[in-house]
């Protein structure tokens, strides 16, 4: 004790003790600095990972919507299925996900797509269909992973509006057969419940030509994308034989704008037959018209201001006042007839021609829409004539959609198949995102609130 007391009194070694205390302080400071820089670096890395993971998860949503929209959600079975890259049943009560897919830059994504929802189990609010339409809703959950260990999970509600669009494809559709003898310049979709036959010269002038048919497919052209419609698809809402609603015909028979049509030559007579022999200019203002027969021969110009809806009535319709004769419910355009859409921005919806025909007849013995030579414009129109025979003899150009019982093009037809989305009756081809949510980045597909 005496030695320690003496040492303390002499203060020997005190400098070393102070120095060691300073060293400890310095080391603590250094450790704090290192810890701060490590935390900052880790934060920067995780921020990079988080950004990359969200971008990857968003890519997963886009891939899912794209792939889903390229399938046709036609049947009840498909609506009850989940979706990966094709429709698949649930496994153990849970939708299967895709495998991880590389996005590049070290990022990956996978996704889960629910069946058509019957309860509100997804981001956002339940979507109510616009008036007169029905829609289906699916829920997509995508997970993204990126460099630095970032994981993100996002969810999107997508809605697909169904009907009552009456055009099964955005282009030409025949309830029985579609035959082309020579030179079809085409863009878009083609469909037929029966056979599709191309004898010569089908040329793509825009969107890829895709063909669906229930019977046989014959073509001299190779390389066209074509597929058979299954029995189930032929019976689906989209492709089945339609039953035409008579309401539009009945209403327009009594209340129409027929009196507003002006013609430099020819007239619309009391029997609602519009005809002119030669060199006429017909002006059709926007409105709804009901006619029993349309006949133009030689050099007619038809100027229409949208929207124009023409009901081509037929005495075969119960309640129709069209005269019972062979021209009833037919169109005869004979030579150099130009359909001139007066809209500055033209659309197939500018002119809608509905022809009653003779249900349930769909063959070439049905009432005829006959375009004989040089019918041009191009005609921006949607022609719905499932119980009429549509025949073109030479040189016809049109943009829009055509449905007819049987269709025959003899020569030189240019047709751009397209429809406004609001008019398409296709199922499953247009899924629209309606809500988006970033979830907890759990990797469980059934994480609460994010499935």
């Amino acid at each position, binding site marked *: 004790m005496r030695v320690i007391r003496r040492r303390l009194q002499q203060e020997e070694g005190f400098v070393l003790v102070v120095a060691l205390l300073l060293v400890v302080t310095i080391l603590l400071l250094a450790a704090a600095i290192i810890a701060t820089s490590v935390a900052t670096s880790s934060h920067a890395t995780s921020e990079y990972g988080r950004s990359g993971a969200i*971008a990857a998860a968003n890519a997963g949503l886009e891939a899912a919507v794209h792939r889903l929209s390229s399938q046709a959600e036609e049947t009840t079975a498909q609506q009850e299925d989940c979706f990966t890259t094709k429709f698949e049943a649930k496994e153990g009560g849970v939708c299967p996900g895709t495998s991880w897919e590389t996005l*590049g830059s070290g990022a990956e994504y996978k996704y889960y797509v629910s069946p058509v929802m019957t309860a509100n189990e997804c981001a956002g609010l339940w979507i109510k269909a616009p008036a007169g339409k029905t829609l289906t809703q699916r829920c997509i959950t995508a997970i993204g992973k990126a460099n630095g260990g970032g994981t993100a999970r996002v969810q999107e509600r997508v809605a697909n509006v169904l009907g009552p669009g009456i055009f099964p494809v955005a282009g030409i559709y025949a309830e029985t057969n579609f035959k082309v003898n020579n030179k079809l310049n085409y863009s878009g979709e083609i469909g037929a419940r029966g056979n599709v036959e191309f004898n010569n010269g089908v040329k793509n002038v825009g969107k890829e030509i895709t063909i669906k048919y229930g019977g046989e497919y014959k073509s001299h052209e190779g390389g066209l994308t074509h597929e058979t419609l299954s029995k189930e698809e032929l019976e689906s809402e989209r492709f089945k034989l339609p039953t035409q609603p008579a309401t539009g015909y009945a209403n327009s028979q009594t209340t129409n704008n027929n009196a507003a049509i002006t013609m430099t030559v020819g007239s619309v007579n009391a029997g609602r037959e519009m005809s002119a022999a030669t060199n006429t200019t017909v002006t059709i203002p926007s409105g709804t018209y009901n006619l029993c027969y349309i006949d133009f021969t030689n050099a007619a110009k038809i100027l229409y201001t949208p929207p124009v809806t023409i009901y081509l009535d037929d005495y075969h319709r119960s309640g129709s006042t069209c005269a019972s004769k062979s021209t009833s419910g037919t169109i005869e355009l004979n030579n150099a007839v130009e359909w001139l859409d007066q809209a500055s921005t033209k659309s197939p919806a500018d002119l809608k021609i509905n022809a009653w025909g003779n249900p349930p007849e769909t063959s070439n013995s049905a009432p005829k829409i006959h375009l004989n030579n040089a019918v041009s414009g191009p005609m921006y129109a949607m022609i719905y004539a499932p119980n009429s025979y549509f025949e073109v003899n030479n040189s016809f150009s049109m943009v829009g959609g055509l449905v007819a019982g049987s269709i025959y093009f003899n020569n030189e037809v240019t047709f751009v198949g397209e429809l406004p989305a*609001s008019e398409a009756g296709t199922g499953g081809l247009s899924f629209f995102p309606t809500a988006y949510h970033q979830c907890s980045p759990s990797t469980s597909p059934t994480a609460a609130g994010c499935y």
Partner: protein
Amino acid sequence: MTLFEVLMATLILAIASSGLLSAFDAGRRSISYSELHSVATQVGERELQRVSSLKWEQVALNKELSWASGSSSTTNPTHYLSASECDTSVTLPSHKPCYQYDWSSSYEPLVLGSEAELSSEPYKATDPVTFTTSAPGGATRLSGSVYRYITWVSDSKCEGTGNTCFSASTQTNYKRVIVAVTMSGLQRPVVLSTLLINHKGEASNPLFAGAKCVEEGKPITEAASVECA
């Protein structure tokens, strides 16, 4: 207090101080690098969101610019450009020039558009786009470059019957957007990428049937009065 003690204490403090200075320097460098990384990430994320919000036709690169490989360095984003054709086995709107989107082995054709199509894309005339960040006094603090590459996606897993997976149409295929940010001092660029599809919705979305839009150029507070187009 002896001379020896003082010398020993001085030595210990000198060693400790040098360690502290090293730690300070390493910490400063690490924090500076983290700042670079953070800024690059935020600039990349901002650019990705900006491109994603463009109209479909404007999500493209200016075909008047050169899209040839410009560097032998594997950390330079232009290294992965190629003038050769790619993805010729599938139908896509174009097949060259191409970009190696994964910086490894897979090429996809670039989405190119005319200056007219890119009319309202502010960065159509430049590649890469340079950027700077400012210190509180206004002086330039950091600078870097943003490279954007947009490709037509060659998605072998898309197997739809609607044939929108691969087509010559510029409307139905989907696009990959790759944003690479380089900064002086950053060892490797920050690379972010995502996919974009042409949402057929927008004005033609049947859910919006009957909706009115505000005329282009007018404030959104103004009453919507025109047809959406």
